């Protein structure tokens, strides 16, 4: 199986074949023979040339293709694309077409909305204050522009991924 993996903006080609615990893989042409043990879902113990790599794979909440892989105390954000299925890596959303969607990154309660419809905001200006776990977090605009939509009011409860406002 061939996959395209993206880490920190760089693409890597991963080819992998498995026969029980024996895994043969090529990453960008580097060949590895690995003994892989999956004792629990998402936890892979890889042995490669007597070196131990305990890897924990977690699927992102937002998109199934974005994974977080922890190897020992190191962590990697990985986006997988299966060329056969052509899923994943759609880069639309956050900054497409000069608009910025202000998204709640965690569940919480809207304490204040700091901008008004139609107002011009600077990059880095606070848009909405969301409280979670006793801390108020000011969610800032990633770009300068005009507020074209406010989707929440003070007192509202929001979930991670909810659209709070749009800056154009």
């Amino acid at each position, binding site marked *: 199986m061939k996959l395209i993996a993206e880490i920190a903006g760089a693409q890597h080609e991963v080819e992998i074949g498995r026969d029980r615990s024996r895994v043969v893989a090529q990453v960008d042409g580097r060949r590895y023979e690995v003994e892989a043990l999956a004792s*629990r879902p998402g*936890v892979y113990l890889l042995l490669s040339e007597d070196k131990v*790599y305990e890897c924990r794979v977690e699927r992102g*909440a937002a998109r199934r293709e974005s994974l977080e892989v922890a*190897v020992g*105390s190191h*962590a990697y954000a990985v986006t*997988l694309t299966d060329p056969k299925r052509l899923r994943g890596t759609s880069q639309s959303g956050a900054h497409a077409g000069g608009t910025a969607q202000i998204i709640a990154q965690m569940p919480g309660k809207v304490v204040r909305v700091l901008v008004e419809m139609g107002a011009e905001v600077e990059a880095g200006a606070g848009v909405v204050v969301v409280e979670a*776990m006793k801390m108020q977090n000011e969610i800032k605009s990633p770009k300068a522009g005009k507020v074209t939509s406010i989707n929440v009011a003070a007192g509202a409860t929001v979930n991670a991924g909810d659209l709070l406002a749009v800056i154009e």
Partner: protein
Amino acid sequence: MFRKILIANRGEIAVRVARACRDMGISPVAVFSEADAGALHVRLADEAYEIGPAPSVESYLRIERIIEAAERCQAEAIHPGYGFLAENADFAQAVADAGLTFIGPTAAAMRLMGTKTSARRIAVESGVPVVPGTTDPLSSLDEARRVAAGFGYPVMLKAAAGGGGKGMRLVTSEEELPSAFETAQSEAAAAFGNSEVYIEKAIERPRHIEIQIFADQHGNVVHLGERECSIQRRHQKVIEECPSPINDADLRERMGAAAVKAARAVDYTGAGTVEFLVSDATREFYFLEMNTRLQVEHPVTELVTGVDLVREQIRVAAGEPLSFKQEEVAWRGHAIECRVYAEDPENNFLPSPGRITHLRSPAGPGVRDDGGVEAGAEVSIYYDPMISKLAVWGRTRGEAVDRLRRALDEYAVGGIKTTLPFFRQIVRDRDFIEGRLDTGFISRFFARRDAAAASTEVGEDDTKRRDMALIAAALDYLTAQQQAASNHQPQGQEQSRWRLSGRMALHRRS
């Protein structure tokens, strides 16, 4: 001594108190909100009482519910932990009025030290030095502007009823004052139900050093030395240590004496902490506030002095004299604590609630992990995001840092983001290793880190580790694909397992 103690708290501190109860042969009783029915602090108790819905105002802050539970189970005493009702004088009074023992100071002492403005006044009266600023809450933005102009920027806005860095704002210029004033007031109102804010001159490159004190009901007041808590983020402590890297016997003696003086001024009983700002340059110290409770960072004092502070709290509350004298307090070695939060250090430390899918706590020589969660537990949006306190001890600060680095690397938490990766970087930071700390440490650390990241070369080991991460990701994808495929086929694994259990049921019947 008490037979039964109700612990009016949750998470790691409830677990910590339950452990001290067990050590003393006392039966620990838990209370819990609907969100915490299966929590670790409930599992480790002998009895547990539900006190309301998830939001803390409807459960952990409901005084009458907690006292009702204590009466129902016939507990003789209530330990408040820290946070929630720990510094609420009305709660201490209500506990006393119900004929129960509150494990902490009297309501009167709490009231005197409870608001920072009143505490400041007491410090001034008892001859303990304070930072220039107002002793009364500010009545308006105009007043704030006037006072700040009086001693110049930067200034610090603080909630009168505050603590833990909430409702606290550094203001570097007059332009920032209006929005900071509003935010400080609204945070204070939300967190403490009291929007009063006061103002202080900000000391530059200050170190935050606090003194642990202990007092019994027989007039004995002692101090257990200092804790350095200069590493702060959003004015909240994240790493604490004992002794302070700038400690010397003379400074400790002078600060200890000042702390004892402040405690005596309010007839204090139990465990308390007097916080000071210490100028790194002049070694002058200023009284900040007194916390009338156990502190999150108490383990570092315990590791270095050998005194179990929770056990001592329980003894003192039961009317026993302190189990040690001032001259018997000895400081051995060095301890450091990290507060492990469910927050994403790569995303501006946003809270990261969710289910903990994997948990491996570190252990081994010199390592103590005071955790409050287990694998499978849900870190809720309703409460403080701290999931554990990791503390280490070594004979020297260097040895402690070595053990901390090892323990942090060993610590694995899955399912949520934690501040562990951030701590792993800090323990490798030159300034941290050399003990050059002040409250501006974190922001300078971030600047250093970003500069270092830009120039880091990628070695062969790094490439291989990253490749292994990619292989694991691909394996996970492959496994998910195969599972999905087998779920669609009648001969899949799930199917055969069903068939097997069906056959076993048949066997049992026959």
